């Protein structure tokens, strides 16, 4: 009996994967594929289950597997044609096996007699009619021309139709085995193998009438005629098969020629019929012996092939490894943090730390990889679901599957099965119309369901798309009220997306009648909860009459996520970066961004749009102050703009810290009811922090999103263009560390690809050959406050060669991500450091903007610290009008470095207002600005007698001669290209001097 639990478990795992295969194979078989490999595979799998189960004494499993195997054996030998009814029973049998394998220890108590009876009946019933047909043709003497009904006509027709649909051609080939094979020195074994490899024989007959006996063996021939389908073109057929043109004909359609059998009836002798019948019996009884042989050999071969490059490892072991690696990451973070100040004190420590840093990261990545599995593992179950449903509901359904190869963490894949099944059921049951309705709507009768997985950003998207009737929001509204899921009042404030999301509230079902398909007690609310448990979100898109898309957005893995550490009321929290869109800082009195009240709720007016605001402390119950008070008393309010699905809102926090990769640990059970948290983590400093769940926060704060806002969000991109902002062309890249950097492309002369070996070291500096000259190159990560790896593995590097600097130095980078056209919104609350302008968020990532001047100054102070350019007296004030935050910060930065006081304004109008009130020494202005551009500003200044004498310098990216002329005509003294720092500083001095001299 059952000996060893461990072995049994192995059997269960193996059997389960076999059962999956059998199911997939059966479905393929039902689609009309009589692919012999497929049937062989099914057969082999069931045989293998039977064999191992027998070893453990699992009698009932053996019993059922045995009858199934017998039936499949007959199918395999072409004795019984598979039909839909048979596949039904096989699938049911397979299900029974599944449940027995699942509960293997009690499997012997199961009663499988019903199944066994069915299969035995199938075996006999199918065999009887076949014998009968032979009986009719058999009582004929001579058997000069034998014809056999291999498959029934309907099946044959389906097979041919299917083949035609796939562009196959149909040929009838007739060969003399001696004349066409033997005399051409062709091996019959090879010939038929070739035929099987290029096509499929759908019917055949052999004519042995020429061979009268042993006496004329050498003189006679055997004619074999077969009909077969292949993709090969008529022209290629003779070449591919080594046969003559006259041996084959192209068929348009093919039907069994029953007539031939009739005409031959006359000469068949009655006595041979008995023998044939007997022979036939022998075949069926012997066959189980026949077939076991090939099965055993192939079963033995398989493990040999796979053993070499893969091994089975228990999941708990992988889980332990992952946990350890994650702990290791934490340990590393703590080590790095604590030892930071002593790094320089111990020789060689730095290199060791970096090495540990790198290896830990790689170790963790590799372990994560071991847990990745293709989403196909779940998708494969869906054809069965669709098949069962379409039968039950009488709806014809085509299922398209895309992206089965996309990989997700094992734990996610496992939890995906239920929600996905439910959504598929929903799509077929509720989504697709009945065939009649489809017809009257002018749609093709078979409904379409598409299952699609793909990567987007850092997430995996899974779309379940149907081309059904779509969802009528009006109906949801009504239903919602009926079922008391929502109130009239609430509905008024809901956006369409919100209303669709009602579908996923507990107690909601849109089906007119609860069918046994959807009414299984599992609602959409469970789907939603399950997806959210995985750290994913679900969105619904629908067009009435055209169909519905459910989109699951899932993280690649649950274990480690990038997050931003924030603080409120002295508590630190981790916020998943996926949700973070931008950070906003509001100063009391700032008109462009301020907090307003709508419907008694606080909203943030950001670039003309209204965002609902939540105070983190308040939602979490940490803050006891009056909220209104909190805002008016504090000087600065920090707001994180978060996006959950298509909803955006602002989250007010007290302080913002670094970004950190955190290990997500599940919430302890007693925290489960706190909807604002999705997990807990240990930070680099060893302290724990709760991980915030933005979706939960929305629910807790019962935020309402107006229709206007969702539409606004969609128009986001358009709007920013309309704002007349200058778009910047940004190059995104990575150095050896983790950070993503950005540099404005207008600062870049060219980017060259080089090999690491091309970098030469002279003294302690690195150089490359560029256009015949030595160009100094640096690795930015060595100068900036960022991470780095010492012995980088990159096999090629890139050098960014900047332009418009006096002594160019190339930047060595490892990876170019992308170039993007965008308006950069600098985060004020920011990662600061020498050499960096600041940070922004692009494509959901924090990106560091490099300040190339500062960087070069750090690298080579002697070349860049040109004191002559500095204004020693610190008494000159420059009014800078510039709307692009990036350039504004860059320019202000070096003006201040050069010793000027700087007043920064965002457009000409604001600049002019300043001039009326304050005296400045020089105006430095951009040309393209909103409200009032630089040209108008210059004209206004020159018109005003009080200001006419001011030195005016244009600072622009429009360097055409025409633009320059227009600038000079408007009244600028100098017209300079924005980025040439040295020249600009020189020009400033010149301009001030000239105007002074003129006075």
């Amino acid at each position, binding site marked *: 009996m059952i000996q060893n639990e461990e072995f049994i478990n192995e059997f269960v795992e193996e059997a389960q994967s076999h059962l999956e295969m059998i199911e997939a194979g059966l479905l393929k078989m039902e689609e009309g594929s009589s692919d012999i490999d497929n049937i062989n595979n099914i057969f082999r799998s069931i045989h293998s289950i039977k064999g191992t189960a027998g070893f453990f004494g699992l009698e009932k499993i053996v019993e059922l597997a045995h009858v199934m195997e017998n039936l499949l054996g007959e199918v395999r*030998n*072409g004795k019984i044609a598979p039909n839909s009814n048979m596949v039904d029973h096989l699938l049911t049998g397979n299900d029974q096996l599944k449940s027995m394998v699942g509960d293997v220890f009690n499997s012997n108590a199961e009663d499988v007699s019903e199944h066994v009876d069915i299969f035995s009946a199938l075996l006999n019933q199918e065999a009887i009619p076949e014998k009968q047909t032979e009986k009719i043709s058999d009582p004929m003497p001579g*058997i000069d021309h*034998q014809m*056999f009904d291999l498959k029934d006509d309907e099946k044959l027709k389906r097979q041919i139709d299917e083949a035609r649909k796939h562009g196959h051609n149909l040929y009838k080939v007739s060969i003399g*085995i*001696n004349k066409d*094979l*033997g005399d051409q020195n*062709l*091996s*019959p*074994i090879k010939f*038929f193998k070739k*035929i*099987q490899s290029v096509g499929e*024989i759908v019917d*055949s*007959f*052999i004519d*042995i009438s020429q*061979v*009268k*006996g*042993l*006496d*004329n*063996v*050498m003189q*006679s*021939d*055997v004619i*074999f005629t077969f009909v077969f389908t292949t993709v090969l073109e008529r022209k290629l057929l003779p070449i591919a098969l080594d046969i003559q043109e006259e041996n084959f004909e192209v068929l348009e359609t093919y039907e069994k020629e029953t007539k031939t059998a009739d005409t031959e009836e006359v000469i068949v002798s009655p*006595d*041979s019929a008995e*023998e*044939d019948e007997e*022979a036939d019996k*022998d*075949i069926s009884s*012997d066959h189980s*012996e*026949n077939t076991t*042989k*090939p099965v055993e050999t192939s079963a033995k071969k398989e493990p040999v092939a796979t053993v070499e490059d893969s091994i089975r490892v228990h999941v708990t072991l992988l889980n332990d490894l992952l946990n350890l690696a994650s702990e290791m990451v934490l340990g590393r973070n703590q080590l790095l943090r604590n030892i930071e100040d002593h790094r320089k004190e111990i020789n060689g420590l730095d290199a060791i730390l970096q090495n540990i840093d790198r290896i830990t990261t790689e170790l963790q990545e590799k372990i994560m990889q071991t847990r990745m599995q293709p989403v196909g593992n779940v998708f494969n179950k869906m054809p069965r679901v669709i098949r069962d449903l379409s039968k039950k509901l009488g709806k014809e359904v085509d299922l398209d599957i895309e992206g089965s190869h996309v990989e997700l963490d094992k734990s996610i894949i496992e939890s995906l099965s239920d929600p996905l099944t439910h959504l598929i059921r929903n799509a077929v049951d509720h989504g697709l119309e009945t065939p009649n309705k489809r017809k009257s709507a002018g749609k093709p009768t078979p409904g379409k369901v598409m299952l699609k997985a793909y990567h987007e950003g850092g997430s995996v998207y899974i779309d379940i798309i149907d081309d059904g009737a779509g969802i009528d929001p009006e109906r949801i509204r009504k239903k919602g009220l009926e079922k008391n899921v929502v109130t009239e009042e609430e509905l008024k404030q809901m956006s369409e997306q919100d209303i669709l999301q009602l579908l996923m509230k507990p107690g909601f079902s849109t089906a007119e009648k609860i069918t046994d398909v959807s009414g299984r007690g599992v609602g959409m609310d469970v789907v939603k909860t399950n997806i959210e448990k995985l750290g994913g979100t679900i969105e619904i898109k629908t067009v009435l009459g055209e169909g519905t898309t459910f989109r699951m957005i899932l993280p690649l893995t649950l274990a480690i996520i990038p997050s931003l550490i924030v603080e409120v009321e002295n508590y630190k929290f981790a916020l998943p970066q996926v949700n973070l869109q931008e950070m906003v800082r509001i100063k009391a009195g700032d008109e462009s961004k301020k907090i307003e009240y709508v419907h008694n709720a606080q909203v943030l007016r950001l670039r003309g749009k209204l965002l609902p605001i939540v105070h983190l402390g308040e939602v979490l119950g940490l803050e006891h102050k009056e909220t209104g008070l909190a805002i008016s008393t504090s000087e600065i309010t920090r707001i994180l703009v978060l996006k959950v699905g298509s909803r955006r809102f602002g989250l007010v926090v007290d302080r913002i810290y670094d970004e950190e990769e955190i290990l997500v640990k599940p919430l302890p059970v007693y925290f489960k009811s706190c909807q604002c948290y999705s997990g807990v983590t240990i930070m680099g400093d060893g302290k724990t922090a709760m991980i915030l769940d933005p979706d939960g926060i929305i629910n807790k704060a019962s935020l309402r999103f107006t229709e206007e806002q969702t539409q606004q969000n969609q128009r986001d991109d358009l709007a920013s263009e309309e704002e007349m902002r200058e778009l910047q062309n940004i190059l995104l890249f990575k150095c050896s560390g983790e950070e993503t950097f950005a540099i404005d492309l207008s600062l870049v002369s060219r980017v060259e690809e080089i090999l690491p070996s091309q970098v030469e070291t002279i003294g302690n500096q690195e150089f490359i050959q560029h256009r015949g000259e030595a160009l100094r190159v640096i690795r930015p990560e060595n100068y900036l406050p960022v991470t780095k790896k010492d012995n980088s593995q990159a096999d090629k590097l890139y050098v960014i060669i900047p332009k418009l600097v006096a002594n160019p130095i190339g930047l060595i980078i490892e990876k170019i991500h992308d170039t993007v056209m965008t308006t950069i919104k600098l985060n004020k609350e920011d990662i600061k450091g020498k050499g960096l302008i600041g940070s922004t968020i692009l494509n959901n990532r924090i990106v560091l903007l490099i300040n190339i001047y500062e960087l070069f100054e750090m690298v080579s102070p002697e070349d860049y610290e040109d004191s002559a350019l500095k204004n020693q007296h610190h008494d000159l004030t420059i009014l800078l009008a510039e709307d692009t935050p990036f350039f504004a910060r860059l320019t202000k930065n070096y003006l201040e470095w050069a010793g000027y006081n700087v007043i920064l304004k965002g457009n000409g109008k604001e600049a002019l207002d300043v001039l009326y009130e304050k005296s400045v020494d020089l105006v430095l202005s951009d040309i393209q600005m909103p409200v009032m551009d630089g040209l108008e500003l210059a004209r206004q200044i020159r018109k005003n007698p009080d200001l006419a004498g001011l030195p005016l310098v244009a600072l622009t990216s429009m360097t055409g001669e025409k633009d320059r002329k227009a600038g000079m005509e408007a009244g600028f003294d100098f017209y300079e290209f924005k980025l040439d720092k040295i020249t600009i500083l020189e020009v400033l001095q010149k301009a001030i001097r000239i105007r002074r001299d003129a006075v």
Partner: protein
Amino acid sequence: MNAEKTNGQLEIVFDKNITAAVVEDMTGNIKSMLEENRDYSHVIANFSKVEYIDSTGITLVIGIYRTVKDKEKEFSIIGAKDEIKNLFSIIQLDKIFDIA
């Protein structure tokens, strides 16, 4: 090639590949075997040593079948290798006589 008769079953053991080169000899051999053991009721061709069979070989097998059948006796093949079994099943010989 030799033959052994037990209880009316005449087992002919083919000891080499059945190809055009040897078929004529084999035909002669088999003919005399059948002559010598006239009282057989069932001829069994043992293929366990046959790795390969060509077109003429196939004709020979059919020839034996026809001769045996004409005498209203039975014919079957045992010990056939997978490859040969597969071939015989494609050309439907397995429907004419028993192949194991």
